[in-house]
Structures are given as C-alpha cells and as structure tokens.
C-alpha cells in the first residue's frame, strides 16, 4: 500500500479515527496491527523478517540490559547486528556479492558455486534495519534503557508512516512518544494535512511526471545527445528530491495528525553552499546515523591507532577524516542499492567531501584575494550553483542502469550542443502556430513539452516556497500565519493543480527499493 494509492486514502483516515476513539492504553496495539497490515499489503511473507528483526533486537537489548559485564553486552550487540545485517545481506546484497564474485573468479578461470537467490527485495528493509541497529547501539552505549514493552517496541519499529522509507527515527527521540497520551489537536491535525498536501504536490505533480522524462532518456542513452543528458540529470535531481522528500512530508504529516513528531529529513538541500552542508540537509536521518554510528567511530579509531601527530606531512585528524569519510560514503552508497553505480555515487561524494575538507584554507585564501565576498549575493549564488552542479553530476551514477551507461552519458554530456542551439534558433525564427503546436505536444522525451513546462512551473513554486521558508523548520510555516483567503487559495491551487496534472499511475517511491 503506497501513500499515493486509493487504498491508503481509505486506510489512513480509518486508522486516525480509531486512534482517537480508543483508549490510550490500547493505541499501541492499533498502531501495531495497522502497521503490520500496511506492510503486509506489499508482500505478506516479508512481515516475518520484520518480526524477526523486531524480536531479536528486543530480546538482545533486554539481555544487554541485564548483563553485568561489558563483554556480555558486546556479545549481544554483535548478535543483534549479525541477525539484522545477515537478513539485509541475504535479501539485498547476496546476488550483488555473487555477481561480483562471478566476475572475480571468472577472471581467474574459476567457476563460482554460489547459487542465485530468487527473492524480491523486502520493501524498506534498509530503513527498519538501521532503526533497529540505532536502538541497540544506543542501549549498548547506555543512551537508552532497554524497552520492556514488546508491543510498544514493535510499534516503534514498524510505525507505518515511516516504516518503508524513513525517516530513520532514533529510539531516544521517538520511542518515548508512544507513551505520551495524544489528544486530538486541531492545529496539529491541520498542520499534518498541510504537509500531506505539500508532499503529494511534490510526489504526484513533480516527481512522477519528471520520471517519464528521466526514464525515457536514461533507458536509451544511445538515442539522445548532450543537452538531453543535462536536462534529464537536472530532472532527476528534482525527481529524486521531490519523490523522497514528498514521501517524508506525507509521513511526517501523517504522524503529526496522530500527534507524533517525526524528525525533519530534508532541509532545502539544493540551497546548500557546500557539499558537506548538502549532507546536513539531505536525508538528515541517514546522514546523522552514518555520522554517529559509522564516521565518528571509524575516524576516532583511525586517529587512535596512528600514534604520530602527522603522517606524510598530513595531520592525523585529516587522515581520520579521509579514512572515516571514504568508508562511510562507500557503505552509504551501498546502503542505497546493491550495485556499483551506487558505490561510485557514494565514493564520488566522499571525494567531494574530502576535497572540500582538505582545501578549505586554500579556497578561503582564493576567495579573499578575488574580493568576491564583497558581493555576498553573487558569492552565495555561485557557491549554491556550484554545489548543485556537483551533486547533480553525482546523480548520473545514482540513476544510470550501470557503470557503462554512466560513462557513456558523462562522455557525451557536451555532444551536439552546437546543433541544439542552431536548431533552437531556427525554430524561433520560423515559429508558426503549427510548429509551436508540434513542439508543445512533442512526446520524444516521454512527456509532452507542454507538461514539462507545467512541471517546471511547479518546481519554481516549490523553490519559491523554500526561499520564503528562510529559517523556519517546516515549509508549512510559510503559509500558516497568512490571512485565511491567502492560505485557502494556496491550498486549493495546490490540491487541484496536483489533481489535474499529477500522474496517477501509482508509481512507487524511489526510496522504497532501498
């Protein structure tokens, strides 16, 4: 059951109604049943994996809580990690591992005895696995006491709005909310519904329409030229953002209607001025997870192991950063998908981040010498544009079917540009009603240009809202305190614009596959 299905439009109001009708002490049970039903609507069998993940982490955390010795605690930590990462590996990475082994052993003239696992990837497995791991690590570190109530813990792991695509909630923030007595609050409900409408606007109108263009070009790169690749990559940058942040908005909104406060997952990432800032704004729940549970421990461990203050005239801290970042981004890329394209995407971001970190001083000097800082608007715009270009370039690896496709697209990204500009000039000089009509309804990119313009307008509206958002934590803050006629006009425009020009083919969310 996807958020953009009719099924969910019936399911969600029914759950909300029951949630406020039944007494507080039974609400966890309702949420648990609703969440398992929600998950089972994809593939009933995979609910077993969710149950195993929940039960193992619950039991080992309890064991950890009652263990007296550090070694025992560590054992429980490794057991939980082993069970959950084992499931993740078997269902998500086994075939990738097998293919890689095939290639390696084939090059040595050996055959690989490993069989192919013919299983579907369980929806959202990476999300709930990371959520469970964060819980067990928090318990291990003593940041959180083991949860005693199995039902409430299970409801925390499987909470349906964020089960399949996050945000990856921390137990310290989210678990206590299940014990709070949520009363129906009009303002929270209205705020949640605002976010849901905004999320659908991003998903159905922008992301799903852009998907046609991106799919058409990325499926057959040989048929297209440089300008198409540039356009498709920019489209994908907005598609993936609107798809994922749209999902998050709906999830956060749905949680808010029921009185839950899910964490912010996106903070206008394409306004970031550096790549490292981008990662504090993009998929925040994952990036903070990676920072807290991977990057910092690895970086500190590397620094501890190197006892000298500098190696090869480079500070030990820098080596720690380079090592920690490379491993974290490698695993972060792999988390997104079992494929080398995702690994390349992660490593490319690692290169950006390491380059940014190591050249900070030099860049500062260049900026100072150029005097561009005296024009802050221009300076900030250039930084944002540069960061957006780098991030968009990396999306090529994320979206391409394989490395060779990505290579083809990158090597042809500037091909045929002269021809394009000449053609555009000819078109404008010979513009008639017929040529304009033929152009507007031309479907060569998978979506008529007239619809592409409508989507571009929607993107402009979205970015205008982001600009107006300034330091507010949520986009709904832009409109919340305006006069009623302004608010309502905005709501009606968003709702009916989405309804008329949205894509209603129930396309799944991109991040479901992760």
């Amino acid at each position, binding site marked *: 059951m996807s958020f953009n299905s*009719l099924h969910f439009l019936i399911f969600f109001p029914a759950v909300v109604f029951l949630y406020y009708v039944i007494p507080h002490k039974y609400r966890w049970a309702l949420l648990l049943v609703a969440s398992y039903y929600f998950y089972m609507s994809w593939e009933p069998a995979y609910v077993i994996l969710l149950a195993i993940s929940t039960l193992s982490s619950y039991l080992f955390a309890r064991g950890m809580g009652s263990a007296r010795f550090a070694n025992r605690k560590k054992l429980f930590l490794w057991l939980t990690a082993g069970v959950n990462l084992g499931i993740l590996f078997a269902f998500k990475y086994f075939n990738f591992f097998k293919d890689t082994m095939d290639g390696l052993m084939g090059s040595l003239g050996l055959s690989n005895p490993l069989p192919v696992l013919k299983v579907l990837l369980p929806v959202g497995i990476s999300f709930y696995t990371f959520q469970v791991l964060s819980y067990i690590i928090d318990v291990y570190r003593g940041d959180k006491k083991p949860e005693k109530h199995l039902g409430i813990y299970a409801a925390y792991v499987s909470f349906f709005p964020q089960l399949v695509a996050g945000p990856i909630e921390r137990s310290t923030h989210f678990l206590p909310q299940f014990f709070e007595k949520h009363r129906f609050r*009009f303002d929270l409900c209205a705020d949640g519904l605002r976010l849901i409408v905004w999320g659908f606007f991003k998903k159905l109108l922008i992301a799903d329409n852009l998907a046609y263009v991106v799919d058409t070009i990325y499926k057959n790169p040989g048929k297209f030229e440089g300008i198409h690749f540039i356009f498709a990559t920019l489209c994908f940058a907005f598609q993936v953002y609107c798809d994922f942040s749209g999902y998050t908005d709906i999830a956060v909104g749905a949680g808010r209607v029921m009185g839950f406060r899910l964490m912010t997952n996106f903070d206008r990432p394409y306004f970031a001025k550096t790549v490292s800032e981008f990662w504090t704004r993009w998929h925040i729940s994952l990036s903070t997870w990676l920072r807290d549970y991977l990057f910092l421990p690895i970086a500190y461990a590397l620094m501890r192991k190197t006892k000298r203050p500098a190696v090869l005239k480079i500070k030990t801290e820098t080596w720690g950063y380079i090592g920690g970042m490379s491993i974290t981004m490698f695993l972060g890329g792999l988390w997104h998908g079992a494929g080398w394209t995702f690994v390349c995407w992660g490593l490319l971001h690692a290169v950006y981040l390491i380059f940014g970190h190591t050249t900070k001083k030099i860049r500062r000097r260049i900026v100072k010498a150029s005097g561009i800082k005296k024009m802050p608007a221009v300076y900030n715009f250039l930084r944002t544009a540069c960061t957006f270009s780098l991030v968009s370039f990396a999306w090529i690896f994320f979206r391409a079917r394989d490395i060779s496709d990505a290579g083809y697209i990158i090597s042809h990204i500037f091909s045929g540009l002269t021809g394009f500009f000449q053609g555009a000039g000819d078109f404008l000089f010979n513009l008639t*009603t*017929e040529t*304009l*009509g*033929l152009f*507007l*309804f031309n*479907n*060569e990119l998978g979506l*008529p240009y*007239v*619809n592409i313009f*409508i989507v571009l307008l929607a993107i402009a509206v979205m970015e205008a809202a982001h600009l107006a958002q300034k330091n507010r934590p949520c986009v709904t803050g832009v409109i919340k305190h305006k006069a*009623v006629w302004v608010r*309502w006009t905005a*709501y*009606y425009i968003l*709702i*009916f614009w989405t*309804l*008329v*020009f*949205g*894509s*209603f083919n129930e396309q799944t969310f991109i991040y479901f596959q992760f």
Partner: protein
Amino acid sequence: MNKPLSISNFRKTAKVVLFLLILFGINQLLVTLYSQMTASSILARRDVRFRNADKTGVDILVLGDSHAYSGITASPFKTNPIKWVAPGEGYMLNYYKLEYGLKQFKPKIVILPLDLHSFSSVRYRIRDDSYWVKYADYLEVGAVAGKRLYYAKKYVKGRFFPYVGAGPTINDWAMKDIFKLQKDGMMMRRELNLKPKKKKGRAKKNRAKKNQVKKSQVKTPRQPRAERTLAQTKANMQFRNKDYFHKPMVTYFKKILSLCRENDITVLLVKYPVSRDYYQRVSELVPLQRFNRQVRGVLNDYDNYFILDFQNIFFSGMENMRDVDHVNKKGSRRISRKIAKFIEKHKLDQ
C-alpha cells in the same frame, strides 16, 4: 471557561465545513468544465451524427470501432442509417450503446464488425469514464471481467473526479481544437520513424513539373517497407496481450446477439478489409483456423445474423485503403454499396 472554548470549536468546525464546501464546489465546477470542454467534446464530435439524426425512422444502426468509422458511408443506403461508432470501441461498449439506443428507436438491422481483433482483450477497456458512466454498467463490466474493484474505482472517478490526472486528455483537446493537429497520424509516423506526410497536391505538382507530364498522370509512390512496418506494429498492438479470444468480449458479443434476437433485429457481421501485410502478420500471431472455429462455435447458438466477409477484397493493392486496416473514402463507398445491395437483395429492411 467552557463558553469561549465552545465558540472556538464552533468556529473551527464552521471553517472546516466551509473549506470542504468550497472544495466540493470547485470539484463540481471542474467536473462540469471537463465534461463540456475536454472529454465530452472529443467524444461528442464522434457522436455528432447520432445526436443530430432524426431517430424516428432509423432502420440501420452501425456500431463498431475505427474500421466501421472509416468503412461505412451513409449515401448508398436507401433506408435511414445511423453510424454511432467511435475509434477503439469493442463489443462491450457496443453492447451498452445498443442498449441505450434501443430505448430511443428500434432499428431493423445492426451492422457490427467481426474483425480479426474484435475479440482481443486489448479492446476490453473503457477510456473516457466521464463519457461512459452515462451508458455502461460498470458493475456488470467488472463482474464479467472479474475486476469488480477496478471498474468500481473507474466509475467513481468517471462520475465524481473525471478531471483527475486529465493532463493528457486536456492536451488532446488543446492539440485538436487550438492547434488543429491530428495526433494519431503524427505520433504513429514519429514512432515508426517515417518521414512526415507531405501535402499530396504539391508533391504531385512538383513531380509533374519535373517529368513534364500532367498532374493527373502522376501516381503517388508507395512505401511498401513502411506499410509492412506499420502492419506489424498495428498487429502487434492489437494482440499485445496474446489473448485473441478474450472471454469477457465473447460474453458481450453474445449479449449483443441475444439483445438483437429479443428485438427482432438482424445483425450484419462485417469483416472489414485489411491489407495483405497486416493479415499475414496477424496470422503469425493468431491461429486463424482455430479462431474461426471458435467464432463459429459462438454463432451456432444464433440465427439472426449474416456474415459479410470483405477481409481480403483489397489484398491486391492499397488504392482503396487509407492504411493497413482502414479503408479510404473510395473503399468505404465500395463496401457500403455492397452492404446496401446485400440488404436490398435479402430485403432485410422490410
């Protein structure tokens, strides 16, 4: 303490109600606009002859899809015919049109296609729900196909939210009514990577000038390879589900024949002409002997029909064909004359 709280609650409730009322109002406005300007206008163009006809003395009702649309011309018929056809309509939609039509007039003859693709599952579809909710019984359509929920959803959408996801329909409307462009031909040519259609007159004139002959002596060169490609593409499209004898289609075919029998109507089952290339491609996709046996099996239960087979009459050339499975005006006149003669010969209109 309670008083201000209750006023606040009343205000909130009133606001919510007002918001929803405006929402429903806009929804209704869009439903009306959509029905008037887009979907209905496109379909109404196809219905225009039906709507303008004097239905009191109708003797012949022509039903079917684009084959009937291009294949039947009214002029050769001595009796009063109504062509109520639209491209893409299969037996299921034909049945509901017939049922609706019989409430308004009582024809003596119904002309129905019996083409190679007539029973294909591809034709078991309703595209423009806002138009068809008037005619079709969606619950029945769903029950016959075993897809009750799917068709119930379609009914709700067609009845209350037809404009949802209507971008493509609005494009069609804008394309045809504002820019005066014909989508199908244009798109088909682009998909097949064919050269754009040149204006015949000018091309002929240029060739006549070049060869120093009269314009009437110049023949338009044919594109045999393109026709073959088109034949293959169209045939593949019609049988893409590989279900050439779809059970729900058979059910509706039987329902049409039964309804006609109950109303003493003779059914003329017309096999419209196709090109040789198209026929050959279909014969690769469909076991034709088996298919014909299956059709005969269905028809055995009825006696109120005649089959007029024109399938191969234009195999020799494309002079009478617009494309691989549609006749042109010339072909249409020839077929219509033949049908009119048949009716006259058998005195079916009396």
